[in-house]
């Protein structure tokens, strides 16, 4: 499903962020990528999502080498990946319209988009908040909405960057439970976090990103 090998990445200043990273993620696996701040977790997710141009190494996602993909193929791959960026901010519209906007931008007709949005909001527990202004949501609901938006177009891979950031212990458990429910053994998911981890995370595989390389925990 995802195969990363000999991946290197340096900043413009020449600082090596990723050095000889090897990572394998099975289809349908839920993986926690942990590590301290500035360890390169977000960068690795950006590379996997074909959002950040790679420099050296090999990244296979669904059998496609991201490093060698042309522009159109990169866009096509991005459409098959759900991504929750770190510090996600919803659009200044209702919760419902946030989800519908993405679906319609990806080509769904209004009815189809409405139907999928309702289903996704129900899955992520946001049905009651659907008419609220998304920017007025609580931290946990904001994360739920980010997950809903990443999930609404039925992606093959879900990448979540710091979904527990700024949440209370109880809220971390709530999001953790949601992720495990969504995963349910078939959706491939990578969750990057510097902590805290929900209790359910101990049932999943965890790898640590330290000193630019990946280490199993």
């Amino acid at each position, binding site marked *: 499903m995802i195969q990363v090998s000999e991946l290197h990445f340096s900043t413009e200043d020449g600082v090596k962020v990723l050095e000889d990273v090897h990572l394998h993620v099975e289809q349908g696996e839920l993986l926690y990528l942990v590590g301290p701040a500035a360890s390169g977790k*977000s960068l690795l997710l*950006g590379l996997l999502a074909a*959002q*950040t141009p790679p420099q050296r190494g090999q990244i296979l996602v669904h059998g496609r080498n991201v490093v060698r993909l042309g*522009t159109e193929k990169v*866009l*096509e*791959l*991005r*459409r*098959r*990946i759900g*991504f929750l*960026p*770190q*510090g996600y*901010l*919803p*659009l*200044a519209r209702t919760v419902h319209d946030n989800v519908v*906007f*993405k679906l*319609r*931008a*990806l*080509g769904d007709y*209004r009815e189809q988009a409405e139907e999928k949005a309702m289903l996704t909001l129900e899955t992520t527990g946001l049905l009651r908040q659907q008419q609220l202004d998304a920017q007025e949501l609580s931290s946990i609901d904001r994360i739920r909405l980010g997950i809903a*938006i990443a999930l609404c*177009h039925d992606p093959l891979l879900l990448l979540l960057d710091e979904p527990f950031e700024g949440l209370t212990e109880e809220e971390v458990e709530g999001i953790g439970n949601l992720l495990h429910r969504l995963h349910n053994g078939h959706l491939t998911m990578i969750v990057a976090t510097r902590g805290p981890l929900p209790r359910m995370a101990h049932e999943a595989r965890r790898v640590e990103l330290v000193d630019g390389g990946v280490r199993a925990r």
Partner: protein
Amino acid sequence: MNTSMFLFRELLGAIRAKSATYFAFAGLLLFLFLAVVASFFLLTPVEAIDPDAQEPIEEIHAFLSPRLSSATIDERYLQLRERVEVASIQFRFAQELNDSASGGVFVVVPVSNEAAARLMSELARTEGVTEIVEVAQQQADDEAEFSLIVRIGLLCALVLTISGSFILVRLGYRELLEVFAGEVRMLRLSGISPRSISVLVVGFGLLIGVLASVLHFVVIYLVHQIVVSQASPWQVLEGATRGWRIVGIGLVGIALGSILGGLMGLLGASLLHARDFDPLP
């Protein structure tokens, strides 16, 4: 509704009062630019139609008998030069003006048309003058042209309106894209190509250009209708009486407005390269 139309509608939906004001004034300045361009073709220069201007002053060619002695010619010349009706006088050989003629000719420029009439009758009575010919003087402004000051004024207006329009449209785009930045980030994150997003922005500039030029077409058509409905059209707008010219200028205006609108859109799309629109922090 296809995706592009949906996104274009969303972009228009992000227009707020401030950006709308900038865009409205940018469109207005573009309209004024097109109006100034049209004025080059529609307005008749005032100098050319000044009702107080005098009729062209004529030259009088007084052909002299070849039998006149040079002393007599000198005497006649001096007498004519002293007259108040004469602005200038030259002696030339008749062959310079007419190959078959002989003798000399006085080329007299009178001070006014009334003076010309008096001089004609005086010359007709003068001994040795065989023929008198009136020649209309070639006017320098026969081919009507705008004066230098008017032309400089119009060129300044062109530069000011178009540069003002581009400055305002850039401010408008900055406001609009600030409101729409979240959507742009989401679109990029979702795999919508940056080029598709730029096309929306360019399309909006094109819309401004087309609207301004269509308004321009309507206004010059109305001016044409008003001018032709007058019993005696204003002479300064004589150029607006010709229907084919109005259509031509209107179509050129639409083409020009569309090109400039497209350029405005490109200016707006260039703002999308800023880091604010990157999907990842």
